């Protein structure tokens, strides 16, 4: 690990000022410490933000508000989260181990780095880690990689589970930086790799995630997260789907579908959603909609199966959501 100076500011302002000067935030450390040990990350200054008042979970009218420092486990166990947005709780407990969920913050979860093995290898080309060094995955082993949103420069999958749920639920986030505060949809946090895969998110220098706001609604109750993987637990998704349905009088009025494990960012499928609206919540409708999911997919040598698994996962998740009383 590269040597670094650790700072522990007491105020958000001090933290932001330090970060604007080039320091890195650290909360749970589950991603950062791991990558620092491999020297994939080499921050020289770290700002421990755990003293900042950015925790807590509350309800504001229709919105569930989750502090950026709230831990994954804390959010998953929260009564309001379970009541108002069970999809979030479900996606959280399917992600990481109980120990990691006790450590990892919500903000850190959204900003976690990719799991591409070559990203972690200093002796492999990786445009994300070292711009211009090439992508060892495109011609290497890529069974776990993305089929949507890829470029000739990067094919790494975004690994977060809860981000998929938040994108499906139209969550927004509030961030604070040297220029003050702003809010935007969580979906807009994530960039496509394009020819700048080292730029992963849209935060400006020094910006700090303050909270995540999730709008409620009747769709939230018929919402499920399905994570498909070879091991029953403690594995990143091959494919995952967060879906929510609003069904009235036997007709789908509203549908939300976002998928993980297949995209270079959490992937919302608005075409599939549109296809469902106005139809009955039955398997045929689900299959017709899911067929659109892998349109435009660019499978790699070893991950063709994801194009097949993706629609199947969506169908199954929709069926599960349909079964929710």
């Amino acid at each position, binding site marked *: 690990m590269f040597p670094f100076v650790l700072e522990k500011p007491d105020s958000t302002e001090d933290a932001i000022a330090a970060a604007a000067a080039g320091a890195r935030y*650290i909360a749970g450390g589950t991603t950062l410490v791991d990558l620092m040990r491999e*020297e994939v990350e080499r921050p020289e200054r770290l700002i421990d933000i755990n003293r900042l008042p950015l925790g807590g979970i509350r309800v504001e009218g229709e919105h569930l508000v989750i502090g950026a420092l709230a831990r994954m486990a804390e959010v998953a166990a929260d009564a309001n989260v379970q009541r108002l947005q069970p999809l979030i709780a479900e996606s959280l407990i399917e992600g990481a181990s109980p120990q990691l969920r006790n450590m990892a913050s919500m903000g850190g979860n959204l900003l976690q780095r990719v799991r591409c093995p070559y990203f972690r290898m200093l*002796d492999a080309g990786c445009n994300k880690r070292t711009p211009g060094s090439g992508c060892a995955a495109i*011609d290497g082993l890529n069974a776990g990689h993305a089929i949507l949103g890829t470029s000739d420069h990067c094919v790494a999958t975004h690994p977060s589970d809860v981000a998929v749920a938040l994108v499906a639920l139209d969550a927004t986030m509030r961030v604070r930086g040297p220029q003050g505060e702003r809010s935007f949809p969580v979906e807009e946090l994530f960039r496509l790799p394009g020819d700048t895969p080292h730029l992963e998110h849209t935060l400006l220098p020094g910006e700090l995630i303050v909270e995540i706001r999730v709008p409620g609604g009747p769709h939230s109750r018929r919402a499920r997260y399905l994570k498909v993987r070879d091991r029953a637990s403690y594995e990143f998704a091959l494919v995952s789907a967060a879906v929510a349905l609003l069904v009235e009088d036997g007709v789908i009025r509203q549908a939300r579908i976002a998928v993980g494990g297949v995209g270079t960012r959490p992937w919302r499928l608005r075409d599939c959603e549109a296809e469902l609206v106005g139809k009955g919540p039955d398997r045929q409708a689900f299959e017709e909609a899911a067929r659109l999911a892998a349109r435009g997919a660019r499978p790699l040598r070893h991950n063709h199966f994801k194009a097949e698994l993706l629609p199947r996962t969506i169908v199954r998740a929709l069926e599960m959501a349909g079964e929710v009383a």
Partner: protein
Amino acid sequence: MAENPSELHLPGPIMSRREALQVTAGAVTLAALPPETVAATSSSPAVVKNDMTLTMTVNGRIHTLTVDPRQSVLDVLRETLDLTGTKKGCNQGACGACTVLVDGKRIVSCLTLAAMHGGAQIETIEGLEKDGVLHPLQEAFVEHEGLQCGFCTPGQIMSGLGCIAEGHAGSPQEIQFWMSGNICRCGAYPGIVAAVADAAGRT
């Protein structure tokens, strides 16, 4: 063959285009790092003293420690305090062998920087036995064959304490789900589940 039984993989450079030379600058650290960083590393191996002094309560004992901020709680326990009961299985947060309780919560100590936990209350496997009497969960692990080689056992037990405290030991299935952050390569899982269930019932 294992990855692609049916096709021959054409060999090509795995290294970056920049490095595609017959003689590669090997510690490809170089290739991976922006040039200015490399320059800084090789020209100034200056001693950076970032050490921090902090106190940490381990199993009820207060320790005042000077730590390198890079040190994990795991390394401080094992190498500084010689509390070697907590094990380093992967040092990647992916096996659970290093699980301890920090302020009552189970965490993996390999990914936890000690310098961020000044003032923390840490409980490790060494602190469970009181006056020669085993904790009920320790007893249950022996009784139910919740171990074989014993290497993951301290982490399993600390994780089990967390699992019980969190209220996730209601049924064998629930225990299996909430104990899946601790790998046991010997496969003592059935005994581990039985031990956690038994101890949860006793407490």
